[in-house]
């Protein structure tokens, strides 16, 4: 079969000593930057681009890809250990992952996220190899209207599943949506809500917001109340999940992988929805949803698998079509062009070594990451024993370096500090930061896609219901809303985002 001869070509390329070394280097750097809060794959790949000049294109891309998906593995570490999401995709991991760490199950949480990520990564790699080309069509079916409806569905998940403080959750989502409108308006070029302050003209960066309201605010909160830290550092517990936990996590991993894989293919960074969707699904399916937000292993296994699957499948539009679905992939396009490979539909036939070599290396990379990460768990967990007075300056320092590196801008660091204070105030008043981030992430796409769809339809809102996929997605959103608002079910309604009171 063609697939096998292609894959053997790919493994032939990827298994050369040099490419193995590059793959390992990429995965290792990726793990490191994933662990360092604030330092993201975009800044790292941009910085490392020049050193790949001396390497051949295949090797260079294998390494850069390794950094990207390696960061997805590493990103969960800070989310679980110190409650700081390094990436948009690890926001939900903080919810149950950090609770698990507080209960002395940090090792289990890290273990299950590594294992889940490996399974998801392997599946997504096979998916790219076997169905990459046909799946590209899925990406092309999603126009602005479909995308808007998908975002509406995403927001419905969040609204519906918030309990008790539903009003506060809605308020946070709305605030997130509002924050996402800061900056230059895409369609008219007018600045909105920037108050003439130039650094706001391109809007707030996700990392600035996330590091502020999660990272900095968390540090302030912990400094106020040192005892809570002691709980974490005294109980270390097992390093790997046991049989029961594996069984609990198996189905969430499978569902998360599937969800993440599909969303990852969509243009415009659909991958960010993966973990949120997976978390919502797991909670909805759970026998006892009240465990979520209090250290449910399913709440770590599902989203972690989803984010890694999405990271892998987002390579599909890049490799098969030459069109980057998100900022990291846009950087990969740059890397390819610098190396003289013009990304496009011809890459598969013109550069089969590159195409299949990269795919094979992704699987090898995932295996390497599992091998890198499992032994490191012991080390990470030991980090929790470091006294907090030594830990927090390091966390703040790395956050600042990370924020600065995004756009070489000191103003970003100052804004992060501002959002730190803001995030602390939110926590004090009992508002959760996660819905705010979800609102922010979805808000940009929501507005952008809605306006694009309306411009194309000449202002007719019917476009959202006339197009079958869009109508289907809106219908699902409506069903979820209705079902959740029925009194019998609303009793069981639970908090998606509350962290623990």
């Amino acid at each position, binding site marked *: 079969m063609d697939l096998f001869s292609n894959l053997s070509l790919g493994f032939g390329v990827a298994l050369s000593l040099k490419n193995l070394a590059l793959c390992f280097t990429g995965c290792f750097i990726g793990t490191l930057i994933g662990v360092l809060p604030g330092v993201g794959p975009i800044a790292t*790949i941009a910085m*490392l681009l020049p050193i790949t000049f001396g390497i051949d294109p295949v090797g260079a891309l294998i390494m850069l890809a390794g950094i990207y998906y390696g960061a997805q593995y590493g990103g969960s570490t800070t989310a679980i250990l110190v409650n700081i999401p390094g990436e948009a995709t690890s926001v939900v991991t903080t919810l149950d992952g950090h609770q698990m760490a507080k209960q002395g199950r940090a090792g289990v949480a890290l273990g299950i996220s590594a294992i889940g990520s490996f399974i998801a990564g392997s599946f997504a790699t096979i998916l790219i190899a076997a169905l990459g080309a046909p799946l590209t069509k899925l990406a092309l079916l999603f126009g602005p209207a479909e995308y808007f409806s998908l975002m509406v569905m995403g927001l419905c998940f969040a609204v519906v599943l918030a309990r008790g403080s539903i009003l506060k959750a809605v308020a946070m989502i709305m605030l997130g949506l509002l924050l996402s409108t800061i900056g230059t308006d*895409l369609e008219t070029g007018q600045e909105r809500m920037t108050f003439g302050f130039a650094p706001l003209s*391109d809007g707030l960066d996700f990392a600035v917001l996330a590091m502020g309201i999660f990272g900095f605010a968390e540090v302030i909160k912990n400094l106020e109340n040192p005892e809570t830290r002691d709980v974490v550092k005294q109980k270390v517990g097992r390093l790997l999940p046991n049989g029961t936990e594996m069984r609990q996590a198996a189905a969430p991993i499978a569902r998360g992988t599937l969800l993440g894989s599909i969303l990852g293919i969509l243009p415009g960074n659909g991958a960010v929805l993966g973990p949120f969707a997976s978390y919502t699904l797991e909670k909805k399916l759970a026998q006892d949803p009240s465990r979520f937000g209090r250290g449910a292993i399913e709440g770590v296994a599902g989203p972690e698998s989803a984010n890694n699957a999405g990271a892998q499948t987002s390579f599909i539009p890049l490799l098969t079509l030459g069109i980057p679905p998100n900022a990291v992939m846009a950087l990969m396009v740059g890397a390819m062009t610098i190396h003289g490979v013009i990304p496009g539909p011809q890459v598969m036939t013109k550069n089969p070594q590159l195409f299949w070599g990269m795919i094979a290396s992704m699987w090898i990379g995932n295996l390497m990451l599992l091998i890198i990460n499992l032994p490191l768990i012991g080390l990470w967990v030991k980090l929790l024993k470091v006294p907090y007075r030594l830990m927090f300056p390091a966390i703040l320092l790395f956050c600042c370096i990370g924020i600065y590196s995004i756009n070489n801008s000191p103003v970003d660091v100052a804004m992060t500090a501002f959002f730190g204070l803001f995030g602390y105030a939110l926590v004090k008043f009992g508002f959760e930061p996660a819905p705010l981030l979800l609102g922010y992430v979805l808000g940009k796409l929501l507005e952008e896609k809605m306006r694009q769809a309306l*411009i*194309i339809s000449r202002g007719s809102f019917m476009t959202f219901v006339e197009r079958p996929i869009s109508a289907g997605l809106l219908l699902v959103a409506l069903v979820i809303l209705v079902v959740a608002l029925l009194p019998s079910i609303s009793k069981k309604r639970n908090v998606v985002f509350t962290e623990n009171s």
Partner: protein
Amino acid sequence: MTTLTRRAALGAAAVAASLAMSNGAQAQGYPNKPITMMVAFAAGGPTDVIARIVSEHMSKTLGQQIIIENVAGAGGTTTTARVAAAAPDGYTLIMGQMGTHAAAPALYPNLRYNPVTDFTPIGVAGITPIVIVTKKDFPANNLREFVAYVKANPDKVNQAHAGIGSTAFTTCVLLKAQMGVQKLNAVAYRGTGPALNDLVGGQVDFMCDQVTNLTPQITAGNVKAMGIATPARLAVLPNVPTTTEGGMPDYQISGWNAIFGPKGLPADIQARLVDALDKALEDPATNKRLADLGTVIPNKTERAPAGLAAILARDLALLDKPLRETGAVGQ
């Protein structure tokens, strides 16, 4: 953190060391420390790619590393303003382009620089021709049919572009002005990638953009090329007719990237930089890398400081009125 320590720290010691050696020979006077070349757009974008390819060879000639610094913001105007205000010592340069220098004055009423008087031109690094493409099942098959169809169906046709001030935006504003359909529906996307995605997916009808981005999609038949805005056909796209062939001889426009320093750059420093750029563009390997991207390497007269000033003056004049008429403004 300098590029060298970063490299060493990241363990690519072998590659870095050999590069460091080759750059070790110091020239007298300028340059005696690394040069910063600002790129007002994200790493990996077309301007960044050209800056990196050209600066790699220029570093060898100058005997000093050229460090690329990407600071994106406000359509590139923030960073361009920063370079305009920098010390004219030759250590701060910018890889400018059509948007930051030729289009910005008409789009940003509060622009903090004058693209002509606030800069010392060094030279043109690359010219990227513009091609008009439609979705693959668009009713027109050539530029004449295209113009006729668009004029007959202005309420049906949607144009995509990569954001206000982008090359895709600017060049299409000119096209629409020349076709007499200024008010045609335009859909803004965040960059060429998403716009192209929706064009290939058939959500929008047409766009204008640099061949660099479009050649693979045209070759694969994912989009249809109506015409290329150059005097002669391109070697990479031999089957795509020119706009002159298609009956729009006045639609002549290309994207370009050029190196500028702040105004008042001493003549000897300017000369050294011009020489380094010449050597880079004459180097067969660098030349081939640029050509593979679909970039046209300007000849020595075109790319010289006077040639750059001429291109800039031409495009400023060409774009000013159509851009102001769109009513799109930044800041």
